């Protein structure tokens, strides 16, 4: 039996995992990263449009700062987020982007003088001053007051991922790809690493560490149609759930992106609309201004996705052999702009839809339909990134419910979160690894290994049983049909009960291919029961939450209910159970910097208010007024309204152009 020891174990080799590994390696820890695939192939590479950070460099970003970014993020979350974490995030994001620049990310830079942009379908000239020349540029994204999304053409995730992966190589992080963590080693509520299967040889080994960090991304592949890579199956989330001790937060909060290409599900970045592209219906009519006169095509993702579905329900969609869709028109941006700033989008359209989106008029319109895109929920953590219930287990990035996104994430905030959480959580994680020792008996570790070895043998031994692909595809269908953009009690009841039956069936799978090494069917056989547990957490959480908040839309409960539902869903899984245990963690309005209010979309009355909101609002107003009259600056006022912890190097004031 093989036991490998290291100080810091990171599961998942995307941006969050690698950046956290860098944090650990910088502190001199022996650090191992496990990844299903070569790390530069991680799903982070698919992030196209950009990363939010309030640099305030460009003309259209002037006046941007942490406060504006914070307000956008809290409103975007539909007040579901942890405001202290959102503050930690917005304060560190500008530092993250500047660090990445020094590591070689070739951010698109500002050019002095006039340049043209399309704003609200009109060609507009924007003038950039001399002193901005060469600084990092930013583009417009949905739900933001300023142009805040920094980018490298539309391959932002790719350039960021390569820079961070190269930095990991420089620091001699031990990167092991084609390795899958299939269970966490834990004892008396403390995590000691993971049981790991080599996806080539099939060998099961124990990776024992002082601290363990899960950064395995989202779980989009529990849905039939998703923009997620095929590796985004939520297994990292599932192994945390299977400890029975770590808990998952807000699993029902699932984001649907408005403009994946139809029907293939390949993402066309929000940068398309950010740069001035618009949605059109079967008549070529630009419909978003009819629904959202203020933000139009650049309303929050949940809002745009719902409006698109609504519009198609009115018969305004385009019929096709694959179903109904709408059009995304970026041809109005002009060929030159597309070939420079939206080149991957153009390539994707050419390869997968046979169109050139730069062609003028209907010829260049791309068929789009909202699809599953992002998991706001994940492994519940404290602001330090550590599980509140399982000591030594940390999580960062999409896998985590660190909770800066609440019930709806703004575009550009997730790729930003990966590196920012990688810095902040990675640092706390590294400190934990320095301060704690491995004090677990090898016989306990061995027990975990033997259990998994026996499980693999058992899986290949059955000659008759269920077909794992059929179970998996059925699960995806159920999630698609009943746990999608619009949800209701009846559909969710159906989903929960059928998923439960599928989960029972999934324990009786017969694997046709009998070898223990490199065997994709065996991988499915042990992953699908885990995916079903994750799916049940999503569906059960959605069934129980009788309100609409952010991306969670209940047609039978259309109002956001702050009186009863201003709380975070926590799901855990007791061994042997067929259903998750659901409990709740309240959000404390009296501690919020921005108490719940109107988000700015749809009808104003669509909200059941919590009486505490008004009380807190008054308190906030009074503090602000008093301190302003005393001449206090915005940092002092912020600290008085809602103090937050953050490592001192990240809490430092961000310098911007024009600051003294």
């Amino acid at each position: 039996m093989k036991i490998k020891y290291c100080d810091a174990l990171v599961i998942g080799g995307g941006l969050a995992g690698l950046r956290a590994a860098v944090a650990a390696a910088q502190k001199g820890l022996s650090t191992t990263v496990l990844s299903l695939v070569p790390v530069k192939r991680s799903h982070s590479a698919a992030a196209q449009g950009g990363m939010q950070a309030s640099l305030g460099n460009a003309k259209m970003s002037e006046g941007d700062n942490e406060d504006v970014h914070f307000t956008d993020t809290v409103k975007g979350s539909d007040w579901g987020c942890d405001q202290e974490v959102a503050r930690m995030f917005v304060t560190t994001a500008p530092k993250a982007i500047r660090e990445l620049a020094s590591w070689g990310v070739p951010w698109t830079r500002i050019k002095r003088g006039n340049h043209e942009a399309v704003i609200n379908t009109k060609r507009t000239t924007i003038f950039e001053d001399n002193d901005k020349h060469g600084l990092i540029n930013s583009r417009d994204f949905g739900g933001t007051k300023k142009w805040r999304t920094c980018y490298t053409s539309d391959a932002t995730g790719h350039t960021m991922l390569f820079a961070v992966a190269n930095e990991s190589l420089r620091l001699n992080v031990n990167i092991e790809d084609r390795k899958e963590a299939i269970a966490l080693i834990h004892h008396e509520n403390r995590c000691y690493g993971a049981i790991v299967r080599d996806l080539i040889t099939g060998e099961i080994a124990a990776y024992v560490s002082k601290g363990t960090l899960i950064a395995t991304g989202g779980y989009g592949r529990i849905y039939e149609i998703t923009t997620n890579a095929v590796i985004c199956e939520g297994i990292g989330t599932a192994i945390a759930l299977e400890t029975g001790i770590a808990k998952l937060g807000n699993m029902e909060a699932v984001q649907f992106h408005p403009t994946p290409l139809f029907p293939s599900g390949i993402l066309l970045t929000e940068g398309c609309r950010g740069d001035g592209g618009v949605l059109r219906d079967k008549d070529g009519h630009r419909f978003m201004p009819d629904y959202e006169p203020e933000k139009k095509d650049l309303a929050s993702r949940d809002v745009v996705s719902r409006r698109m579905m609504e519009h198609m329900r009115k018969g305004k969609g385009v019929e096709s052999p694959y179903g109904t869709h709408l059009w995304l028109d970026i041809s109005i941006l002009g060929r030159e702009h597309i070939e420079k700033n939206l080149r991957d989008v153009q390539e994707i359209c050419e390869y997968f839809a046979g169109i050139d989106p730069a062609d003028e008029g209907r010829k260049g319109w791309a068929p789009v339909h909202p699809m599953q895109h992002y998991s706001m929920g994940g492994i519940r953590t404290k602001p330090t990134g550590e599980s509140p219930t399982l000591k030594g287990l940390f999580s960062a990035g999409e896998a985590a419910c660190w909770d800066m996104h609440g019930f709806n994430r703004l575009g550009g905030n997730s790729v930003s979160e990966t590196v920012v959480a990688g810095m902040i959580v990675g640092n706390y994680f590294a400190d934990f690894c320095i301060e704690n020792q491995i004090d677990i008996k090898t016989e306990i570790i061995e027990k975990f290994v033997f259990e998994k070895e026996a499980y693999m043998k058992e899986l290949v031994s059955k000659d008759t049983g269920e077909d794992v692909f059929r179970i998996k595809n059925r699960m995806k269908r159920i999630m698609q049909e009943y746990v999608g953009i619009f949800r209701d009690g009846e559909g969710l009841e159906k989903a929960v009960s059928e998923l439960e039956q599928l989960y029972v069936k999934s324990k009786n799978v017969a694997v046709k291919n009998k070898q223990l090494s490199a065997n994709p069917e065996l991988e499915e056989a042990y992953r699908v029961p885990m995916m079903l547990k994750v799916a049940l957490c999503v569906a059960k959480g959605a069934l129980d939450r009788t309100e609409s908040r952010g991306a969670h839309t209940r047609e039978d409960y259309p109002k956001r209910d702050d009186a009863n539902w201003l709380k975070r869903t926590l799901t855990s899984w007791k061994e042997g159970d067929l259903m998750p245990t659901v409990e709740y963690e309240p959000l404390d309005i009296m501690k919020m910097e921005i108490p719940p209010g109107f988000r700015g979309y749809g009808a104003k009355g669509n909200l059941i208010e919590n009486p505490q909101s008004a009380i807190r609002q008054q308190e906030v107003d009074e503090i602000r007024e008093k301190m302003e009259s005393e001449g206090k600056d915005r940092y002092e006022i912020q600290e008085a309204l809602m103090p937050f912890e953050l490592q001192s190097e990240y809490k430092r004031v961000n310098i911007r152009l024009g600051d003294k």
Partner: protein
Amino acid sequence: MARELTIKVLRYDPQQKSNGSVKAYFQEYKIKEADSMTIYLALTQIRETLDAGLSFDFVCRAGICGSCAMMINGRPKLACRTLTKDLPNEIILLPLPTFNLIKDLSVNTGVWMDAMSKRVESWIHSSKEIDIANIEEPVEPEVADAVFELDRCIECGCCVAGCGTKLIKEDFVGAVGLNRVARFECDPHDERTIDDYYELVGDDNGIFGCMTLLGCEDTCPKHLPLQNKIAYMRRKLATVQGS
């Protein structure tokens, strides 16, 4: 009428090497072509309905991550964005040559690419202390764009698989490695000199090994200007005097 496709896949499992009877062979699969079917969709269908043990790699299935490069009717290509309608009825799939074979169509590019990255020290070399709370160093927009043009490489391995030199010289760093050198050479954050790059790739396994057969540029799915950059770096490195 939908075509019937015959997909021939080279099967071999080196994990079963100890079993002397295991040999490489072609397996034929017949499937009905669907509208806008890609090799990704075809192989997924084969695994789910005909042969659960068939190994191949896909991650993003959108032409962004580079994991699915394989030989498709004799040429290295990204399988995820290769449409079957552009191919004849018979499609022959082989794993990429020159990389270690994992099984069937799956090859171990990660280990090779990480070693390449370390060999050319594929990271910014800088003596400057950066204060990340302060305004970033300005970069000429054209220079940032030029770096980005070369940073777009997705390490899919097509250029390595298409390279005659690499087939002869096992230790040849390949266009992917030479492109990386060119990328850092034009990045203003990197302080390395031409002499430093000469130390890294100034030999027959590096910049002077390339025979200019153009296989790299012809097969690069991202259309990177690989030959131009190799020629440019070769001219620069040829001027190094040495000490």
